[in-house]
């Protein structure tokens, strides 16, 4: 697993070019960074504007009258959906991480005949466009819901879906992690001592699994939180997650821009906090998306 490979290279070769080259490099980096931050600037500035201040003419200016009305209205409107998203993202992250850990253990250390084929078949599930399963998925879940599982409506349905479609990537992350983090000799020793597969998992593999769990939990939390496609097809404004609610907030006839832009920030805050606080693990998750 590509953990922490982005860390700076040793300082040896750095001091070499304190040259015009170096300056150009820095200026370019600053320019690109400013360009990337432009949307964030506009969103932030607009979210703190008060009524009369929102006219398009001064959209790029800092607020003349500082107001938190936009934030208040966005939070009020998004609060129920925020709660639902939190339940959804946490549950889906925990469930698929547990399954991924068990699977990864088997695919790395307890291979059965055909395990590689099954694993590749799992990986393909990571790449499928969900449009290709959406129509029958919607029907199957609706059938389940109307025949005996009415509680499935809304968030539970999305938890199920995100858990299942999260299995491939979590399995991949754990398999790659266990392949290097758990030496075969230790497992062999445990086997000689008479420990079975589950016992070995519980007392040897699980205790060293934390780094893997951090990566899969963050990855799954972020993708469940940010998902809109499943939300649109499988839930409604009444029981949908925050992406759904934000879409509704932004889609009104007379757009209230401070409230919409505050909504953008409110809906992005949890994943942004995760990114800022645990960026290194977030990046490892991204890396594992590239299969290697």
């Amino acid at each position, binding site marked *: 697993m590509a953990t922490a490979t982005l860390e700076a290279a040793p300082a040896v070769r750095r001091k070499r070019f304190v040259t015009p080259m170096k300056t150009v490099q820095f200026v370019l980096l600053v320019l690109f960074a400013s360009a990337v931050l432009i*949307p964030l600037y506009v969103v932030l500035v607009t979210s703190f504007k008060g009524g009369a201040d929102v006219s398009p003419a001064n959209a790029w200016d800092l607020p003349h009258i500082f107001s938190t009305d936009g934030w208040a209205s966005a939070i009020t409107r998004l609060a129920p959906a925020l709660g639902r998203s939190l339940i959804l993202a946490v549950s889906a992250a925990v469930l698929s991480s547990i399954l991924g850990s068990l699977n990864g253990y088997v695919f790395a250390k307890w291979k059965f005949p055909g395990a590689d084929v099954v694993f590749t078949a799992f990986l393909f599930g990571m790449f499928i466009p969900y449009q290709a399963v959406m129509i029958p998925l919607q029907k199957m879940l609706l059938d389940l819901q109307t025949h005996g599982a009415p509680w499935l409506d809304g968030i539970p349905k999305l938890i199920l879906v995100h858990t299942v479609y999260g299995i491939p990537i979590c399995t991949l992350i754990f398999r790659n992690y266990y392949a290097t983090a758990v030496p075969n000799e230790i497992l062999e020793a445990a086997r000689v001592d008479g420990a079975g597969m589950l016992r070995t998992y519980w007392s040897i593999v699980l205790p060293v699994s934390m780094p893997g769990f951090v990566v899969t939990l963050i990855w799954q939390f972020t993708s469940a939180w940010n998902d809109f496609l499943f939300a649109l097809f499988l839930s409604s404004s009444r029981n949908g997650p925050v992406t759904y609610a934000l*879409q509704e907030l932004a889609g009104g006839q007379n757009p209230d821009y401070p409230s919409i832009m505050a909504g953008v920030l409110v*809906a992005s805050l949890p994943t942004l906090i995760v990114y800022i606080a645990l960026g290194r693990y977030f990046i490892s998750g991204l890396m594992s998306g590239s299969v290697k």
Partner: protein
Amino acid sequence: MRRLRNWAPGLLLVSPSIILVGIFVYGLIGQNIATSLAQTKDRITGRVTNPGGLANYTNLLTDDRYQHALWNLLVLTVVFMTGTMLFGLLWAVLLERGVTGEGVFRSIYLFPMAISFVAAGVAWRWLLSPAQGVDQAVGLNQLFLKLGMPWLQSKWWSDSGSFNMAAMAIPAIWQLSGYIMALFLAGFRGISDDQREAARVDGASEWQLYRYVLFPQVSPVALSALIILGHMSMKMFDLIYSIAGANSYTAEVPATFMWIQLFPQSNPTGAAANATIILAIVAVVVVPYLIYTNRTEKAGR
């Protein structure tokens, strides 16, 4: 028997996941293909309106609206992939050489990746407003006016020209360039410093160092990056839905057209055929890639 006892527990432990993935991925794909081949009947008279089978696909492929969506997807994909790869590689090269505040730049470039396409789309919908001129312009157009560069104003994706989807690629490039940067950066950092030293000792220029020593070694990263971006582009839905709205013909791609087919047009057969084609395009690229990585991994063991 002893061998069976060795591997059976493993299979048992994975079996819940095998069943779930089997049903939710392969079972549903199969069912979707079946739907795409189904016969359609008139709801009231029960008369067969469409014999089904492969005709469903030829109907879709010859539909002007679908062809327009395919063209849009092509424009979007080419601009999105080229732009994202270029920025990703450029940023990685600028950063891998070591610079003050590297961590800050890295975090800034990568932050859009943490935001949902929907949230980003809401912001970009405003930034890419088509209105132009001193009294009307909002978003980026207004910024260009303020900066004294009125010629940069554009109708963006709302433009009626054939290449309007190039503008839709801008927010997508904004979101994913940082990701590609991170992939390349990890690739560069994996190359030992000795090789650079050796090249320099041999008198290689900076350009030659990249061209002949570093770039060839990150080419597997480039392949992964292309696959990831390509499959993302094929299924891009959230961003377009969020920027252009649910019902935009101008910005329509197969993934959003499928939603139109399914709901406003209540044509699940056509929608399923559309989805199957998206899947087929992705599979043609991804399956060989997965087999290839599987092989190289085995060979490396």
